């Protein structure tokens, strides 16, 4: 399956008073759709910094992404974050030159849209990530109002009168004796009728009312329900849709311009052994609508036509490039080059032509700007703002109650109005998960979500994540130092040490046969309730020493001072992350290269 997130050669640095600290050094990761990738390592190994870099939530300065690419669903997340790109080509007219500031602003706005809907993060300590002065329900609703306002408007616009079927639901809810069943029926009734669940619950719980009186009151509530304001909802919907397309289009353009490095890595036979059938790559030139590949005339290729030093492409070469592209479609490059529609020939280059960019919803940018202006004016008047926002807030509230039910918070309507300190640790973490789920993300990053919790609560949360994964099909990057948790949840594991990935493997293989000495040490030092053939009271095997100081990392392999297998080569030469067997990669001199090299 195609990866949704591809991280290539990520380098993150911090400028400290004692020097430059490289917390993440040349990290490659990929996560496929619906997959759980576990990222393991001791504290200080760079797991959290990797996650923060992906979400672009680093404190900058002192932090800085110093290199690498992050591709998310075929788009380059870092495009525009780098000051070097100054040209924004347009489909019509000459390219526009932008000062770096503008690009950064655009990048920031784009990341705001990706976070939440595209990917979201569950943080380690719920108590310090939730706002202590806001009700927890509102904090989740805020995400919805920001991320999914279009859908909320849609739901509001599609309201209709109560039907007999709706009232039937209400009757059932009144008659049902089971609290959970009642909750479910009320929730469904509220989704259909657009009424507030707490009002319905109050009506159902009032004792001694005849059923006809209850129904009459529901009808009255439904009539009183706020109507009108449809023009505003339609206006918002269109504005949001336009913004979405505007951003995606700009983003696609920037991403296409940053395809140069991946193209070199894919098509240059010196870098990618699978490209051996191709002549040496001279240069690549990313254009807004296509990527041009220029090849050198190889020494032995006398039959090919030359033009100076460059090769004049033939139909045969085009076919080879196309075949090579097709071969690598299932991996990392497939995710990055998925936008290539066809491969063509120009007079001196092979041209990878892109798909059409996102369609235009609007003729001119004037419409977008005028709508933005109107929105600004309308929401700058406090009274008007609150009147206009109220129905959206109420609808979001209903949605939040559903989300709370999804993460199995008991009595969601009551919890909505509570403050973070009133909830237990497990409940707080559920609220955080609900918040992360609110945007229906394609990727969730969970940064040690259970480390601060009891084992029983941890079991509940892990079970919840597993359950959610099957229900909403989102990929999870799970960060932890506890391999036992990884065994419960993940499909694949990447082990990180001192800012580098030292081993990556499917979970069953890693546990059955850990290759890297660090992984072996981690696995052995797990204290388990199972006996592991260890005498009670015998000392546990440990990894001696501590994680190195990243300001002055050890020479050669960074693990060699703690490694019991270390030999001379380990002290001098840094091992590369090389393929070992079909699905595994390991960075250790103990494992010879096997003729294979850096996996694609």
């Amino acid at each position, binding site marked *: 399956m195609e990866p949704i997130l591809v991280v290539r050669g990520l380098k993150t640095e911090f400028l400290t008073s004692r020097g430059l600290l490289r917390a993440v050094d040349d990290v490659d990761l990929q996560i496929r759709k619906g997959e759980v990738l576990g990222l393991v390592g*001791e*504290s*200080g190994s760079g797991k959290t910094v990797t996650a923060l870099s992906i979400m672009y939530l680093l404190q900058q300065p002192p932090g800085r992404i110093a290199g690498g690419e992050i591709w998310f669903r075929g788009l380059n997340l870092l495009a525009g974050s780098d000051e070097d790109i100054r040209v924004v080509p347009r489909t019509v007219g000459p390219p526009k030159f932008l000062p770096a500031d503008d690009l950064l602003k655009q990048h920031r706005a784009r990341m705001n849209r990706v976070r939440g809907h595209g990917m979201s993060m569950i943080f380690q300590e719920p108590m310090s990530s939730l706002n202590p002065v806001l009700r927890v329900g509102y904090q989740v609703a805020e995400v919805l109002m920001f991320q999914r306002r279009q859908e909320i408007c849609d739901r509001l616009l599609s309201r209709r009168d109560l039907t007999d079927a709706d009232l039937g639901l209400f009757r059932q809810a*009144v*008659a*049902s*004796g*089971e*609290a959970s069943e009642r909750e479910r029926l009320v929730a469904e009734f509220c989704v259909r009728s657009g009424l507030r669940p707490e009002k319905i619950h109050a009506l*159902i*719980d009032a*004792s*001694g*009312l*005849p*059923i006809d009186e*209850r129904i009459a009151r529901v009808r009255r509530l439904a009539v009183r329900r706020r109507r009108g304001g449809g023009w505003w909802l339609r206006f918002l919907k269109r504005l949001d849709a336009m913004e979405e397309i505007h951003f995606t289009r700009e983003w696609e353009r920037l991403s296409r311009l940053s395809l140069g490095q991946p193209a070199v890595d894919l098509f240059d036979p010196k870098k990618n052994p699978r490209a051996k059938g191709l002549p040496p790559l001279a240069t690549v030139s990313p254009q807004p609508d296509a990527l041009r590949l220029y090849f050198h005339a190889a020494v032995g290729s006398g039959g090919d036509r030359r033009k100076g030093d460059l090769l004049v492409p033939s139909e045969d070469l085009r076919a080879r490039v196309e075949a090579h592209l097709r071969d690598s479609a299932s991996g990392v490059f497939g995710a990055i080059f998925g936008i290539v529609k066809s491969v063509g020939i120009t007079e001196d280059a092979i041209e990878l032509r892109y798909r059409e960019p996102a369609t235009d919803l609007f003729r001119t940018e004037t419409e977008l700007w005028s709508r933005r202006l109107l929105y600004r004016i309308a929401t700058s008047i406090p009274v008007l703002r609150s009147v206009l926002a109220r129905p959206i807030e109420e609808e979001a509230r209903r949605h939040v109650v559903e989300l709370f039910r999804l993460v199995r918070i008991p009595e969601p309507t009551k919890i909505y109005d509570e403050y973070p300190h009133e909830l*237990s*640790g*497990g*409940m707080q973490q559920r609220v955080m998960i609900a918040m992360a789920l609110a945007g229906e993300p394609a990727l969730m990053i969970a940064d040690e979500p259970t480390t601060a919790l*009891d*084992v*029983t*609560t*941890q*079991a*509940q949360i*892990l*079970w919840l994540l597993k359950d959610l994964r099957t229900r909403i099909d989102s990929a999870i990057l799970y960060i932890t*130092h*506890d*391999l*036992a*948790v990884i*065994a*419960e949840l*993940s499909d694949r594991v990447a082990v990180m040490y001192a800012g580098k990935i030292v081993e990556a493997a499917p*979970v*069953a293989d890693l*546990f*059955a046969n850990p290759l890297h000495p660090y992984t072996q*040490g*981690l*696995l052995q*030092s*797990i*204290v*388990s*309730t*199972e*006996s592991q053939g260890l005498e*009670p*009271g015998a*000392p*546990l*095997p*440990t990894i001696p020493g*501590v*994680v190195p100081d990243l300001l002055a990392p050890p020479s050669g392999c960074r693990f060699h001072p703690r490694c019991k297998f270390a030999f001379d080569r380990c002290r001098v030469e840094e091992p590369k992350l090389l393929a070992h067997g079909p699905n595994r990669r390991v960075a250790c001199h103990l494992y010879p290269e096997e003729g294979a090299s850096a996996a694609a």
Partner: protein
Amino acid sequence: MPPPSKDRNEILLAARGLKKHFAVKGGLLQRAIATVHAVDGVDLVIRRGETVALVGESGCGKTTLGRLLLRLIEPTEGDVLFNVPEDVFERMRANGPAATQDDGQTKELIRQYSITRRRRRSMKALRRFMQPVFQDPFTSLDPRMLVKDIVAEPLLVSGLATRPEAYEQGARLLEEVGLRPEHLYRFPHEFSGGQRQRIAIARALAPEPEFLLLDEPTSALDVSVQAQILNLLKDIQRKQNLTYLLITHNLSVVRHMADRVAVMYLGRILERKRTAELFSNPLHPYTKALLSAVPVPDPKRRRERIILPGDVPSPIAPPAGCRFHTRCNAVLPHCGWSPRDIAATAAHMFDPSRNPDASELPPLEEVTIRGDEVLLLRYREPATESNRLGVEALVKARAERPEGIAFRAIQYVRLDGGRILLEFLPAKEPELLEIVPHHFVACYLYPGVTSATN
């Protein structure tokens, strides 16, 4: 009173009917409006040289119990006995487990060995024998003190050494916990979490204690560092014949460290036994759930999991009867169901406007809870005998459904002056009984064994 260091008696610490209630203050005058039953009647014996583990979820009172044992806080009721000879302890116990019906002679003995009845000043001499190691080494070390001062402080405070001696001792202690003497002249922030925990251990070891209270010593640490710290603790215990009380929620640590385990829930001990037996044969449903919650580091093993529903109930109003019955998956009718467990459902079930099955009853006016055993139903018109029979039939039908377990606890349905009374089985808390030798369980699933002494 015999100085405890001279004769090293068999039983180092023992809790007898220990209780600690905290008042919740509220209102304008900050008056006590409720009571938190943090520790509610605990008996525990810690013998010299052994490691006892105290296990439970957060909020179950294990940390409070640890603090009580060191007399860092004063108990509401009960005693902590220190350094008791075995025969004296047996004599005390002959009168039964509770501290209430003690005769004069036992009272005298308790007064002699209790540290909770001592004056504060005479307590100070005992402090050096019991030292704590806390959970979070990032907050338990003073950031403005050098390591040498941190480690030397207990020695200076208890007057065991002069300043130069204390520093010398400090260097020796650091080496003992695996740090180097040059670390003496650094501040806590220069160390990693594992190293800081080592410093905390060195500080606790400084006055040569006999008992260490380990309050979640590794839960703030990485898995790899955790193993190092556990090895260190084991090593020190062997060398110095120390006694540990290990407080943790992580059963895998318990397996490696402890000789005996006590499982706590809401201020009470539910199960107490030797470690190996706890893992091979857990009896209490709560222990089983705790065990199954520990993740197993083997992706191929897919185990049946018992997921406990919900959170620990509030210790302000702990459930009647067995405290665990609200979350138990093996619950019985007589586990202590009370009117508050079914009040909400009852308001539904016996209301003709909401439950079609109850249509022949008059309109329901009010549902009230009276005490722990009676639920009152008041109807708009005085209830008759036929109404009573109707309610009884509803209760019976409900009790036969699997989720209606609470209704099986309803003993009688009575008519009382036009109101209907639902009377429950009396809620009694199960006692901690010895089921198998040295294996104590408080659960109605294991009845019939009368309390025997071990």
